[in-house]
């Protein structure tokens, strides 16, 4: 049916460079940075339009903070922790930022076909995921603010001053983004919002099998062992050092190392899942 065609035609196909030079058309690749900004802008707009999606992340930390401080303050005081509100503030901020991601929006994009619409553009594939993480960074940094206000109301002051507050938000936000790789990996692997929602279960052992309620010295037996292995322990320690102890390289570096480790694993998983989703394509 098409055997009459000149088989040499395909050999004369223009090269990409030739076509770019010749072409009067304006469409081209935007480049990673512009792609990233474009993807992130849409994602941030989605958050602003559907604030309901982040309300749990606003309410849960306030709840924990008020309940934990109210219930345990005297006990902690008796055990030697003088400022229990300061001790709990990092727990509140970690519970605010952990698990906040655009993974559900990504599942929706996959289900509606809009993800494919984006794949049909010359967008850098990495930007499709990194752009969402940039948006997450903006969102989790914003989520730290109400927690800081709460802390100020509870009379918590920062031993490291205003720069310390900035560092506190930066460490918490870095943790939040490092963690997002997990929900993204699940979203890309399964395309299922139920699976993404169930990833929330991971949050409990991470947040509670650690030094969330009492200092390390007070943890007993198996919990002490588990908390030693839990990266959140080190993130909490670095945040607490900023609030209570002043600038201390040790805990800060350990916290950042824990974030880097979790981030490396989770983001590797996310990009592997992205490659998996693109592989058949």
């Amino acid at each position, binding site marked *: 049916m098409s055997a009459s065609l000149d088989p040499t035609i395909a050999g004369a196909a223009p090269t990409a460079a030739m076509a770019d030079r010749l072409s009067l058309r304006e469409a081209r690749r935007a480049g990673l940075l512009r792609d990233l900004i474009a993807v992130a802008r849409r994602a941030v707009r989605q958050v602003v339009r559907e604030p309901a999606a982040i309300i749990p992340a606003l309410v849960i930390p306030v709840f924990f903070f008020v309940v934990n401080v109210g219930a345990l303050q005297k006990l902690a005081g008796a055990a030697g922790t003088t400022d229990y509100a300061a001790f709990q503030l990092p727990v509140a901020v970690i519970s605010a930022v952990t698990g906040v991601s655009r993974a559900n929006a990504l599942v929706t994009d996959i289900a509606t*076909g809009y993800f494919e619409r984006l794949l049909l553009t010359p967008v850098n594939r990495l930007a499709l995921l990194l752009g969402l993480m940039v948006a997450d960074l903006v969102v989790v940094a914003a989520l730290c603010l109400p927690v800081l206000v709460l802390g100020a109301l509870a009379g918590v002051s920062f031993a490291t001053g205003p720069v310390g507050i900035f560092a506190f938000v930066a460490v918490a936000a870095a943790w939040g983004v490092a963690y997002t790789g997990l929900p993204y990996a699940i979203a890309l692997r399964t395309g299922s919002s139920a699976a993404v929602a169930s990833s929330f279960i991971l949050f409990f052992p991470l947040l509670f099998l650690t030094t969330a309620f009492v200092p390390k010295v007070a943890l007993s037996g198996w919990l002490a062992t588990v908390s030693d292995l839990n990266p959140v322990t080190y993130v909490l320690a670095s945040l607490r050092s900023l609030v209570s102890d002043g600038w201390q390289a040790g805990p800060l570096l350990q916290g950042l190392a824990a974030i880097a480790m979790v981030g490396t694993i989770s983001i590797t998983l996310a990009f592997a899942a992205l490659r998996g989703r693109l592989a058949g394509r």
Partner: protein
Amino acid sequence: MTAAPVTAADTVATSLPSLAPAAWARLGAHPVPAIEARGLRRTFGTMVAVDALDLTVERGEIYGFLGPNGAGKSTSVRMLCTLLRPTGGRATVAGFDVVRDATQVRLRVGVALQEAALDAGQSGRELLELQARLFALPGSSARRRIAELIELVDLGDAIDRRVATYSGGMRRRLDLALALVHEPEVIFLDEPTTGLDPVSRRQVWTEVRRLNEHEGVTIFLTTQYLEEADALAGRVGIISGGRLVVEGTPDELKRSVGRDLVVVTIDGEMTPAHEALRALDLVERCEAMGDELVAAVASGPAAVPRIASALDGLPLTIREISVRRPSLDDVFLEVTGARIGASAAAVR
């Protein structure tokens, strides 16, 4: 049955004077087809969705890719527009390999898949703007192009409303606009009118013709509506079981079936009737389908009395005899042995 009764390549080549072959020759290149597939194949596990597809669509054509559900139409489109990696064979679109130079292909093709692929939480304008950014259109061009497209797809003030408030027809039109933002050379439309009301369907047809005639855009259109392929496409390929079984202009394909068809509806035994008609010298071919016998003849009116008398005396009653021109559905029946679907009734 794989023999194509016609080869349209020669007729098509002469219809492209506007492409200025001299300009290409100066560059040391020949005009390349808009779409060229050789042995293109895709399997899913043991299921063969597309089996050795050979296809050439010249620049400026409207090519109709026709077949029933599950024939491999969508899988073919998804491979050609870089969404799906072929299992075998190769394809170029706008001169670029769909696997090796996928980004170059993406810069040059516009795609509207079966379901409108939109973000319901954004406004139409926001989606158009994002599309323009990802194709790196400069601000002024993007604004001009978006204004044109809003006009074109007739979305008016709705463009600033969230997509969630749009009707099905409006979503389709916005989806089409998104596919056009970067002024593609080749447009893939996968069942663009499935599920649309007749008015919206006409609007899409008008737009497809306009894009082709005024902007010289090559259009690759899949459809299961025979009348759609007939109305729009300069050339039609019929795909069945993952293979291109026949290809040509709608007229050529219809002529290949026979100049006229005599359709006899009977009550009674089919087999002797079928044999009686086949035995007639003026009947070129005869197919039995349910209670209908469809005989291809040179001249319908001349054949009717002979057909009627051939059936006389057999254990049956003739319920109806009619003469009609062949439709693409008859072509489909001829090459695949099956009717394409319920929509066939509409084109009779």
